[in-house]
């Protein structure tokens, strides 16, 4: 089990390797990337800000909970902060497990808890030069949320 808030490129292949174990038959890797649009606006990049000390602690807690709940220590998560351009990876979650169903469930648990609890904020930059903090609790105008 390993979690980190990083400010450099996330090496998803390394995370996959790290979650692999010979007694596991399944690895589920979730990768979050910067989309080129949100709520109908064209996005050119995102600044990720975080409350560093708390984010590291909270992310570790989420993964410890998942490890206990789903009985696997093969959980590796990295969340990137700083400035990311469209298509870049902001988050990777790798979960290895003997059973595929549980690997999927553990992966979902981690991402949903991250979306709910991790003190990270994103400021989107739009093609018109403006930028805005994203408020996921606001009602979406258009388009799906990733």
């Amino acid at each position: 089990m390993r979690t980190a808030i990083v400010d450099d490129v996330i090496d998803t292949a390394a995370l996959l390797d790290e979650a692999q174990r010979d007694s596991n038959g399944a690895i589920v890797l979730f990768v979050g990337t910067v989309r080129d649009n949100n709520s109908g606006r064209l996005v050119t990049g995102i600044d990720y800000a975080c409350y560093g000390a708390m984010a590291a602690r909270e992310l570790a807690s989420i993964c410890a909970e998942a490890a206990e709940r789903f009985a696997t220590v093969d959980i590796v998560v990295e969340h990137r902060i700083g400035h990311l351009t469209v298509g870049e990876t902001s988050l990777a979650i790798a979960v290895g497990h003997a059973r595929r169903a549980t690997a999927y469930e553990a992966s979902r648990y981690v991402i949903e808890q991250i979306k709910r609890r991790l003190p990270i904020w994103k400021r989107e930059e739009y093609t018109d030069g403006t930028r805005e903090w994203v408020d996921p609790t606001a009602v979406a105008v258009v388009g799906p949320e990733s």
Partner: protein
Amino acid sequence: MTVTALLFASYADVLQRESIEFTLPHGATVSDVVSRVRALPGGAMLPPTPLVAVNHEYARADVVLSSGDEVAIIPPVAGG
């Protein structure tokens, strides 16, 4: 006693600062800090009961603070 309030993202932008030191009476709670922040210029934009963390852990509004506590007022999170 003295506590430090931290502001982030949209809250830091509107209040134009990232941290504020407050001197409070003993027995002061999380909600006292929120009230003090809300009284500042721009502070009215805070929701009535924002998410708050004390020393890196989410805390309820009625938690009693100690001197030196770090009280973070957390805007809606948007990780991932």
